[in-house]
Protein backbone atom coordinates (compact mmCIF):
# COMPACT_ATOMS: atom_id res chain seq x y z
CA UNK A 1 0.00 0.00 0.00
CA UNK A 2 1.36 3.38 -1.05
CA UNK A 3 2.01 5.89 1.71
CA UNK A 4 0.84 9.47 1.20
CA UNK A 5 3.51 12.01 2.07
CA UNK A 6 2.43 15.39 3.38
CA UNK A 7 4.83 18.31 2.82
CA UNK A 8 5.90 17.95 6.44
CA UNK A 9 6.98 14.36 5.96
CA UNK A 10 8.60 14.85 2.51
CA UNK A 11 12.31 13.96 2.51
CA UNK A 12 13.01 17.34 0.86
CA UNK A 13 11.23 19.29 3.57
CA UNK A 14 13.94 18.46 6.02
CA UNK A 15 16.63 19.66 3.63
CA UNK A 16 14.82 22.92 2.86
CA UNK A 17 14.21 23.53 6.52
CA UNK A 18 17.89 23.52 7.40
CA UNK A 19 19.43 26.85 8.32
CA UNK A 20 22.11 26.63 5.64
CA UNK A 21 19.68 26.10 2.76
CA UNK A 22 17.29 28.75 3.99
CA UNK A 23 20.15 31.20 4.34
CA UNK A 24 21.39 30.46 0.82
CA UNK A 25 17.94 30.74 -0.69
CA UNK A 26 17.59 34.11 1.01
CA UNK A 27 20.94 35.14 -0.44
CA UNK A 28 19.83 34.19 -3.96
CA UNK A 29 16.54 36.05 -3.61
CA UNK A 30 18.17 39.21 -2.27
CA UNK A 31 20.96 38.95 -4.84
CA UNK A 32 18.35 38.85 -7.61
CA UNK A 33 16.62 41.87 -6.06
CA UNK A 34 19.88 43.81 -6.24
CA UNK A 35 20.80 42.66 -9.76
CA UNK A 36 17.33 43.33 -11.20
CA UNK A 37 16.88 46.43 -9.04
CA UNK A 38 13.56 45.05 -7.79
CA UNK A 39 11.73 47.04 -5.15
CA UNK A 40 14.19 49.89 -5.51
CA UNK A 41 14.46 51.73 -2.19
CA UNK A 42 12.38 54.86 -1.86
CA UNK A 43 14.47 57.92 -1.03
CA UNK A 44 13.71 61.47 0.05
CA UNK A 45 10.27 60.49 1.35
CA UNK A 46 9.89 62.97 4.22
CA UNK A 47 6.82 65.11 3.42
CA UNK A 48 7.75 68.54 2.12
CA UNK A 49 6.38 71.45 0.14
CA UNK A 50 8.03 73.66 -2.42
CA UNK A 51 8.29 77.14 -1.04
CA UNK A 52 10.19 78.79 -3.85
CA UNK A 53 11.44 77.68 -7.27
CA UNK A 54 13.68 79.25 -9.86
CA UNK A 55 14.97 77.29 -12.83
CA UNK A 56 15.98 73.89 -11.49
CA UNK A 57 16.44 75.21 -7.96
CA UNK A 58 13.87 74.44 -5.28
CA UNK A 59 13.49 75.61 -1.71
CA UNK A 60 11.69 72.97 0.30
CA UNK A 61 10.04 73.26 3.62
CA UNK A 62 9.67 69.96 5.46
CA UNK A 63 6.43 69.64 7.36
CA UNK A 64 7.08 70.08 11.07
CA UNK A 65 6.11 67.06 13.15
CA UNK A 66 6.06 68.79 16.51
CA UNK A 67 3.63 71.46 17.72
CA UNK A 68 6.49 73.46 19.11
CA UNK A 69 9.68 74.15 17.15
CA UNK A 70 12.91 75.99 17.91
CA UNK A 71 12.72 79.68 17.13
CA UNK A 72 15.51 79.68 14.53
CA UNK A 73 14.88 77.57 11.43
CA UNK A 74 17.52 75.29 9.92
CA UNK A 75 18.38 75.75 6.24
CA UNK A 76 20.19 72.82 4.65
CA UNK A 77 22.40 73.99 1.78
CA UNK A 78 23.24 71.22 -0.64
CA UNK A 79 26.25 70.59 -2.80
CA UNK A 80 26.29 71.19 -6.56
CA UNK A 81 27.88 67.78 -7.11
CA UNK A 82 25.30 65.35 -5.79
CA UNK A 83 21.62 64.83 -5.15
CA UNK A 84 20.26 66.12 -1.87
CA UNK A 85 18.47 62.99 -0.71
CA UNK A 86 21.61 61.82 1.09
CA UNK A 87 20.23 63.94 3.95
CA UNK A 88 16.84 62.26 3.65
CA UNK A 89 17.67 58.70 2.67
CA UNK A 90 14.80 56.67 4.07
CA UNK A 91 12.54 56.69 7.12
CA UNK A 92 14.64 56.02 10.20
CA UNK A 93 17.78 56.86 8.30
CA UNK A 94 17.20 60.49 7.49
CA UNK A 95 18.86 63.53 9.03
CA UNK A 96 15.90 65.65 7.95
CA UNK A 97 13.45 63.34 9.72
CA UNK A 98 15.65 63.33 12.82
CA UNK A 99 15.85 67.13 12.96
CA UNK A 100 12.07 67.40 12.51
CA UNK A 101 11.49 64.98 15.40
CA UNK A 102 13.93 66.97 17.52
CA UNK A 103 11.72 70.00 16.95
CA UNK A 104 13.46 72.00 14.24
CA UNK A 105 11.77 73.81 11.38
CA UNK A 106 13.75 72.43 8.44
CA UNK A 107 14.25 73.92 4.98
CA UNK A 108 16.40 72.68 2.14
CA UNK A 109 18.03 74.51 -0.76
CA UNK A 110 18.16 71.92 -3.55
CA UNK A 111 19.97 73.15 -6.67
CA UNK A 112 18.33 70.51 -8.85
CA UNK A 113 19.83 68.88 -11.92
CA UNK A 114 21.44 71.59 -14.07
CA UNK A 115 20.18 71.78 -17.64
CA UNK A 116 22.39 72.64 -20.63
CA UNK A 117 21.28 76.28 -20.47
CA UNK A 118 22.55 76.46 -16.87
CA UNK A 119 26.17 75.99 -17.94
CA UNK A 120 26.77 79.74 -17.58
CA UNK A 121 25.75 79.74 -13.91
CA UNK A 122 28.77 80.65 -11.83
CA UNK A 123 29.43 81.04 -8.13
CA UNK A 124 28.02 84.61 -8.37
CA UNK A 125 24.60 83.18 -9.12
CA UNK A 126 24.67 80.69 -6.25
CA UNK A 127 26.26 82.93 -3.62
CA UNK A 128 25.14 86.47 -4.47
CA UNK A 129 21.76 85.79 -5.98
CA UNK A 130 20.20 82.42 -5.13
CA UNK A 131 21.22 81.93 -1.49
CA UNK A 132 20.17 85.42 -0.31
CA UNK A 133 16.85 84.99 -2.15
CA UNK A 134 16.21 81.63 -0.47
CA UNK A 135 17.08 83.05 2.93
CA UNK A 136 14.58 85.87 2.33
CA UNK A 137 11.88 83.32 1.55
CA UNK A 138 12.63 81.42 4.76
CA UNK A 139 12.49 84.67 6.74
CA UNK A 140 9.19 85.58 5.12
CA UNK A 141 7.49 82.27 5.86
CA UNK A 142 8.79 81.83 9.41
CA UNK A 143 8.59 85.46 10.45
CA UNK A 144 12.05 85.05 11.97
CA UNK A 145 15.01 87.21 11.02
CA UNK A 146 17.68 84.69 11.95
CA UNK A 147 18.44 81.34 10.35
CA UNK A 148 20.87 78.46 10.92
CA UNK A 149 22.84 77.22 7.92
CA UNK A 150 23.86 73.59 7.64
CA UNK A 151 26.03 72.95 4.58
CA UNK A 152 27.17 69.54 3.47
CA UNK A 153 30.31 69.20 1.32
CA UNK A 154 30.26 71.97 -1.27
CA UNK A 155 27.05 73.25 0.31
CA UNK A 156 29.17 74.24 3.31
CA UNK A 157 31.55 76.02 0.98
CA UNK A 158 28.67 77.99 -0.56
CA UNK A 159 27.41 78.85 2.92
CA UNK A 160 30.87 79.98 3.93
CA UNK A 161 31.18 82.19 0.85
CA UNK A 162 27.73 83.69 1.42
CA UNK A 163 28.45 84.40 5.06
CA UNK A 164 31.94 85.66 4.23
CA UNK A 165 30.56 88.21 1.76
CA UNK A 166 27.43 89.32 3.60
CA UNK A 167 28.68 89.92 7.11
CA UNK A 168 25.28 91.29 8.04
CA UNK A 169 23.59 88.10 6.83
CA UNK A 170 21.05 86.80 9.35
CA UNK A 171 23.02 83.62 10.05
CA UNK A 172 22.72 82.82 13.77
CA UNK A 173 24.73 79.57 13.65
CA UNK A 174 26.60 77.71 11.00
CA UNK A 175 27.31 74.01 10.61
CA UNK A 176 29.72 72.79 7.95
CA UNK A 177 30.09 69.06 7.29
CA UNK A 178 32.86 67.59 5.10
CA UNK A 179 33.56 71.02 3.65
CA UNK A 180 36.90 71.41 1.85
CA UNK A 181 38.56 74.81 2.22
CA UNK A 182 42.27 74.16 1.75
CA UNK A 183 42.52 72.91 -1.81
CA UNK A 184 46.23 72.19 -1.45
CA UNK A 185 45.01 69.22 0.56
CA UNK A 186 42.80 67.83 -2.19
CA UNK A 187 45.29 65.09 -3.04
CA UNK A 188 44.75 63.31 -6.34
CA UNK A 189 42.06 65.72 -7.52
CA UNK A 190 44.62 68.48 -7.37
CA UNK A 191 47.20 66.41 -9.20
CA UNK A 192 44.82 65.48 -12.02
CA UNK A 193 43.58 69.04 -12.51
CA UNK A 194 47.09 70.53 -12.55
CA UNK A 195 47.14 73.42 -14.99
CA UNK A 196 50.24 72.02 -16.69
CA UNK A 197 48.14 69.31 -18.35
CA UNK A 198 44.52 70.04 -17.61
CA UNK A 199 42.96 72.25 -20.30
CA UNK A 200 40.04 73.45 -18.23
CA UNK A 201 38.72 76.06 -20.64
CA UNK A 202 38.66 73.64 -23.54
CA UNK A 203 36.75 71.12 -21.44
CA UNK A 204 34.11 73.58 -20.24
CA UNK A 205 33.82 75.32 -23.62
CA UNK A 206 33.31 71.96 -25.35
CA UNK A 207 30.95 70.33 -22.88
CA UNK A 208 29.09 73.17 -21.17
CA UNK A 209 28.15 71.35 -17.99
CA UNK A 210 30.57 68.70 -16.77
CA UNK A 211 28.88 65.32 -17.40
CA UNK A 212 27.98 63.25 -14.35
CA UNK A 213 29.93 60.29 -15.68
CA UNK A 214 33.17 62.25 -15.69
CA UNK A 215 32.61 63.34 -12.09
CA UNK A 216 31.64 59.85 -11.00
CA UNK A 217 34.70 58.25 -12.64
CA UNK A 218 37.02 60.73 -10.96
CA UNK A 219 35.51 59.88 -7.56
CA UNK A 220 35.77 56.20 -8.32
CA UNK A 221 39.42 56.49 -9.32
CA UNK A 222 40.24 57.76 -5.85
CA UNK A 223 39.54 54.26 -4.50
CA UNK A 224 39.70 51.93 -7.50
CA UNK A 225 39.29 48.72 -5.52
CA UNK A 226 36.40 49.94 -3.43
CA UNK A 227 33.60 48.98 -5.78
CA UNK A 228 34.68 45.35 -6.06
CA UNK A 229 35.29 45.07 -2.35
CA UNK A 230 31.81 46.49 -1.73
CA UNK A 231 30.30 43.83 -4.00
CA UNK A 232 32.25 41.12 -2.16
CA UNK A 233 30.95 42.45 1.17
CA UNK A 234 27.44 42.50 -0.20
CA UNK A 235 27.79 38.87 -1.25
CA UNK A 236 28.99 38.03 2.23
CA UNK A 237 26.01 39.79 3.81
CA UNK A 238 23.24 38.88 1.41
CA UNK A 239 21.44 37.04 4.22
CA UNK A 240 21.23 40.26 6.21
CA UNK A 241 18.17 42.31 5.24
CA UNK A 242 19.34 45.47 6.93
CA UNK A 243 22.79 45.33 5.34
CA UNK A 244 21.31 44.84 1.87
CA UNK A 245 18.84 47.69 2.43
CA UNK A 246 21.60 50.10 3.48
CA UNK A 247 23.88 48.93 0.68
CA UNK A 248 21.19 49.60 -1.91
CA UNK A 249 20.35 53.00 -0.47
CA UNK A 250 23.94 54.24 -0.46
CA UNK A 251 24.67 52.64 -3.82
CA UNK A 252 21.67 54.34 -5.37
CA UNK A 253 22.92 57.72 -4.18
CA UNK A 254 26.54 57.11 -5.21
CA UNK A 255 25.54 56.23 -8.79
CA UNK A 256 22.91 58.95 -9.02
CA UNK A 257 25.30 61.70 -10.08
CA UNK A 258 24.34 65.00 -11.66
CA UNK A 259 26.13 67.34 -14.09
CA UNK A 260 28.20 70.16 -12.63
CA UNK A 261 27.39 73.65 -13.96
CA UNK A 262 30.23 74.57 -16.34
CA UNK A 263 31.00 78.10 -15.19
CA UNK A 264 30.91 77.18 -11.50
CA UNK A 265 33.28 74.30 -12.26
CA UNK A 266 35.63 76.64 -14.10
CA UNK A 267 35.72 78.99 -11.10
CA UNK A 268 36.12 76.17 -8.63
CA UNK A 269 39.16 74.82 -10.45
CA UNK A 270 40.77 78.16 -11.26
CA UNK A 271 40.10 80.07 -8.06
CA UNK A 272 40.23 77.28 -5.54
CA UNK A 273 42.04 74.25 -6.92
CA UNK A 274 44.76 76.19 -8.72
CA UNK A 275 45.07 79.35 -6.65
CA UNK A 276 43.63 78.19 -3.30
CA UNK A 277 42.22 81.69 -2.92
CA UNK A 278 39.80 80.96 -0.09
CA UNK A 279 42.68 79.93 2.17
CA UNK A 280 44.72 82.97 1.13
CA UNK A 281 41.81 85.33 1.75
CA UNK A 282 41.85 86.44 -1.89
CA UNK A 283 38.62 84.93 -3.20
CA UNK A 284 36.52 87.39 -5.13
CA UNK A 285 33.04 86.49 -6.31
CA UNK A 286 31.31 88.89 -8.66
CA UNK A 287 33.46 91.78 -7.40
CA UNK A 288 32.81 90.97 -3.71
CA UNK A 289 35.63 89.75 -1.50
CA UNK A 290 35.01 86.67 0.60
CA UNK A 291 36.30 87.66 4.02
CA UNK A 292 35.86 84.57 6.17
CA UNK A 293 37.40 86.35 9.17
CA UNK A 294 34.27 88.47 9.18
CA UNK A 295 32.18 85.41 10.03
CA UNK A 296 31.47 85.72 13.71
CA UNK A 297 28.52 83.42 14.33
CA UNK A 298 29.05 80.17 16.27
CA UNK A 299 30.43 77.43 14.03
CA UNK A 300 30.22 73.66 14.29
CA UNK A 301 32.64 71.96 11.96
CA UNK A 302 32.14 68.24 11.33
CA UNK A 303 34.84 66.37 9.44
CA UNK A 304 35.85 62.78 8.74
CA UNK A 305 39.36 61.46 9.23
CA UNK A 306 39.13 58.99 6.32
CA UNK A 307 37.20 61.18 3.89
CA UNK A 308 38.59 60.54 0.40
CA UNK A 309 36.31 63.01 -1.44
CA UNK A 310 37.07 65.99 0.80
CA UNK A 311 40.29 64.78 2.48
CA UNK A 312 40.91 65.62 6.11
CA UNK A 313 43.82 67.90 5.12
CA UNK A 314 41.44 70.00 3.02
CA UNK A 315 38.66 70.27 5.61
CA UNK A 316 40.64 70.56 8.81
CA UNK A 317 41.69 74.26 8.61
CA UNK A 318 38.10 75.53 8.23
CA UNK A 319 37.69 76.76 11.78
CA UNK A 320 40.98 78.68 11.62
CA UNK A 321 39.54 80.69 8.72
CA UNK A 322 36.55 82.17 10.52
CA UNK A 323 36.51 84.95 13.06
CA UNK A 324 33.95 83.25 15.32
CA UNK A 325 34.81 83.14 19.00
CA UNK A 326 32.64 80.11 19.53
CA UNK A 327 33.71 77.29 17.25
CA UNK A 328 33.82 73.57 17.69
CA UNK A 329 35.49 70.85 15.65
CA UNK A 330 33.98 67.38 15.56
CA UNK A 331 36.29 64.76 14.07
CA UNK A 332 35.00 61.30 13.21
CA UNK A 333 36.71 58.14 12.06
CA UNK A 334 34.38 57.61 9.09
CA UNK A 335 34.30 58.72 5.47
CA UNK A 336 32.55 61.39 3.42
CA UNK A 337 29.10 59.81 3.45
CA UNK A 338 29.09 57.94 6.75
CA UNK A 339 29.74 61.31 8.37
CA UNK A 340 26.26 62.51 7.60
CA UNK A 341 24.24 59.40 6.78
CA UNK A 342 25.99 56.31 8.11
CA UNK A 343 26.08 54.57 11.47
CA UNK A 344 28.52 57.18 12.75
CA UNK A 345 25.96 59.79 11.88
CA UNK A 346 22.97 58.19 13.64
CA UNK A 347 24.83 57.36 16.78
CA UNK A 348 27.16 60.32 17.18
CA UNK A 349 26.76 63.21 14.76
CA UNK A 350 23.00 63.71 14.72
CA UNK A 351 22.49 63.79 18.51
CA UNK A 352 25.43 66.16 19.01
CA UNK A 353 24.34 68.32 16.11
CA UNK A 354 20.81 68.53 17.47
CA UNK A 355 22.06 69.45 20.93
CA UNK A 356 24.50 72.05 19.59
CA UNK A 357 21.90 73.67 17.35
CA UNK A 358 19.10 73.37 19.92
CA UNK A 359 21.05 75.26 22.59
CA UNK A 360 21.62 78.10 20.14
CA UNK A 361 18.27 78.20 18.39
CA UNK A 362 16.00 79.54 21.14
Amino acid at each position, binding site marked *: MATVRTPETSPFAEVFETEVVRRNLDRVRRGMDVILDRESPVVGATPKDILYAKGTQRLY*RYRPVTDEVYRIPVVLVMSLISKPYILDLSPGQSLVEYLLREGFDVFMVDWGVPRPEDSHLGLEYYVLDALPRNVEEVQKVTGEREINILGYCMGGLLGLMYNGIFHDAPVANMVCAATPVDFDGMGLFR*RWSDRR*WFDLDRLVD*SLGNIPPDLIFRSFEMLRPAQR*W*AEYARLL*DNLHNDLYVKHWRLFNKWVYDQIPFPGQAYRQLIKELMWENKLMKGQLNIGGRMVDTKGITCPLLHIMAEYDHIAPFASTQPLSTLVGSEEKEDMILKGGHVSLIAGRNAWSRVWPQLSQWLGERSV
Partner: protein
Amino acid sequence: MPDNDNRADVGQLWRSWLTETERQWNTFFNDIMGTDSFGRFVGGYIETYSQFQRLISQNMQRSLSTFNLPTRSDIVDLSERLSTVEERLASIESALKTLAEAVGHPTQTASVTQLRPRRTRRPRSQPAQAQ
Protein backbone atom coordinates in the same frame (compact mmCIF):
# COMPACT_ATOMS: atom_id res chain seq x y z
CA MET B 1 36.29 23.32 19.12
CA PRO B 2 32.75 23.35 17.70
CA ASP B 3 32.23 23.62 13.92
CA ASN B 4 30.47 26.97 14.15
CA ASP B 5 33.52 28.62 15.64
CA ASN B 6 35.70 27.30 12.84
CA ARG B 7 33.26 28.69 10.27
CA ALA B 8 33.23 32.05 12.04
CA ASP B 9 37.03 32.07 12.09
CA VAL B 10 37.26 31.38 8.36
CA GLY B 11 34.67 34.06 7.63
CA GLN B 12 36.49 36.57 9.79
CA LEU B 13 39.77 35.68 8.16
CA TRP B 14 38.26 36.26 4.72
CA ARG B 15 36.79 39.61 5.77
CA SER B 16 40.13 40.79 7.16
CA TRP B 17 41.86 39.64 3.98
CA LEU B 18 39.31 41.54 1.85
CA THR B 19 39.78 44.77 3.80
CA GLU B 20 43.55 44.49 3.68
CA THR B 21 43.59 43.62 -0.03
CA GLU B 22 41.30 46.54 -0.81
CA ARG B 23 43.56 48.88 1.12
CA GLN B 24 46.68 47.56 -0.62
CA TRP B 25 45.20 47.81 -4.11
CA ASN B 26 43.91 51.32 -3.44
CA THR B 27 47.34 52.39 -2.19
CA PHE B 28 49.02 50.75 -5.17
CA PHE B 29 46.77 52.47 -7.73
CA ASN B 30 46.84 55.78 -5.86
CA ASP B 31 50.64 55.74 -5.98
CA ILE B 32 50.53 55.25 -9.74
CA MET B 33 47.78 57.81 -10.23
CA GLY B 34 49.63 60.35 -8.14
CA THR B 35 52.53 60.59 -10.59
CA ASP B 36 53.06 63.38 -13.09
CA SER B 37 52.94 60.95 -15.98
CA PHE B 38 49.49 59.73 -14.96
CA GLY B 39 48.37 63.34 -14.57
CA ARG B 40 49.61 64.02 -18.11
CA PHE B 41 47.75 60.93 -19.32
CA VAL B 42 44.49 62.14 -17.70
CA GLY B 43 45.05 65.59 -19.22
CA GLY B 44 45.59 64.01 -22.65
CA TYR B 45 42.49 61.84 -22.27
CA ILE B 46 40.33 64.81 -21.32
CA GLU B 47 41.69 66.86 -24.20
CA THR B 48 40.92 64.07 -26.68
CA TYR B 49 37.49 63.62 -25.11
CA SER B 50 36.77 67.36 -25.43
CA GLN B 51 37.95 67.47 -29.05
CA PHE B 52 35.88 64.42 -29.90
CA GLN B 53 32.81 65.94 -28.29
CA ARG B 54 33.33 69.20 -30.12
CA LEU B 55 33.80 67.41 -33.45
CA ILE B 56 30.65 65.36 -32.99
CA SER B 57 28.68 68.38 -31.89
CA GLN B 58 29.84 70.44 -34.92
CA ASN B 59 29.07 67.65 -37.38
CA MET B 60 25.70 66.98 -35.81
CA GLN B 61 24.83 70.67 -35.93
CA ARG B 62 25.80 70.84 -39.60
CA SER B 63 23.78 67.74 -40.45
CA LEU B 64 20.68 68.90 -38.57
CA SER B 65 20.88 72.33 -40.20
CA THR B 66 21.11 70.65 -43.64
CA PHE B 67 17.87 68.81 -42.94
CA ASN B 68 16.29 71.95 -41.54
CA LEU B 69 15.94 70.41 -38.08
CA PRO B 70 16.48 72.17 -34.74
CA THR B 71 19.97 71.81 -33.31
CA ARG B 72 21.01 71.48 -29.68
CA SER B 73 21.72 75.20 -29.45
CA ASP B 74 18.21 75.95 -30.81
CA ILE B 75 16.72 73.75 -28.09
CA VAL B 76 18.90 75.37 -25.43
CA ASP B 77 17.78 78.84 -26.65
CA LEU B 78 14.18 77.71 -26.49
CA SER B 79 14.69 76.29 -23.03
CA GLU B 80 16.26 79.57 -21.86
CA ARG B 81 13.26 81.50 -23.14
CA LEU B 82 10.94 79.06 -21.43
CA SER B 83 12.84 79.55 -18.16
CA THR B 84 12.38 83.30 -18.46
CA VAL B 85 8.64 82.81 -19.03
CA GLU B 86 8.50 80.45 -16.02
CA GLU B 87 10.27 82.98 -13.82
CA ARG B 88 7.90 85.75 -14.88
CA LEU B 89 4.92 83.53 -14.26
CA ALA B 90 6.30 82.64 -10.84
CA SER B 91 6.69 86.30 -9.90
CA ILE B 92 3.15 87.07 -11.12
CA GLU B 93 1.86 84.07 -9.16
CA SER B 94 3.71 85.22 -6.07
CA ALA B 95 2.31 88.75 -6.38
CA LEU B 96 -1.22 87.37 -6.84
CA LYS B 97 -0.77 85.08 -3.84
CA THR B 98 0.31 88.00 -1.68
CA LEU B 99 -2.73 89.97 -2.84
CA ALA B 100 -5.08 87.03 -2.25
CA GLU B 101 -3.73 86.45 1.23
CA ALA B 102 -3.99 90.15 2.00
CA VAL B 103 -7.71 90.10 1.23
CA GLY B 104 -8.20 86.84 3.12
CA HIS B 105 -8.52 84.34 0.25
CA PRO B 106 -6.35 81.27 0.94
CA THR B 107 -4.45 80.09 -2.14
CA GLN B 108 -3.50 76.60 -3.25
CA THR B 109 -0.07 76.64 -1.61
CA ALA B 110 -1.15 78.70 1.35
CA SER B 111 -0.77 75.62 3.55
CA VAL B 112 3.01 75.86 3.19
CA THR B 113 3.11 79.45 4.26
CA GLN B 114 0.46 79.01 6.91
CA LEU B 115 2.31 76.26 8.76
CA ARG B 116 3.01 78.20 11.88
CA PRO B 117 4.13 75.94 14.70
CA ARG B 118 4.89 77.69 17.98
CA ARG B 119 8.53 78.76 17.91
CA THR B 120 9.02 78.40 21.62
CA ARG B 121 10.82 75.06 21.91
CA ARG B 122 13.76 74.87 24.30
CA PRO B 123 16.48 72.25 24.53
CA ARG B 124 15.86 69.42 26.98
CA SER B 125 18.64 70.54 29.31
CA GLN B 126 17.14 74.03 29.43
CA PRO B 127 13.70 74.05 31.07
CA ALA B 128 10.99 76.14 29.45
CA GLN B 129 10.27 79.44 31.18
CA ALA B 130 7.07 79.64 33.13
CA GLN B 131 4.43 81.63 31.27
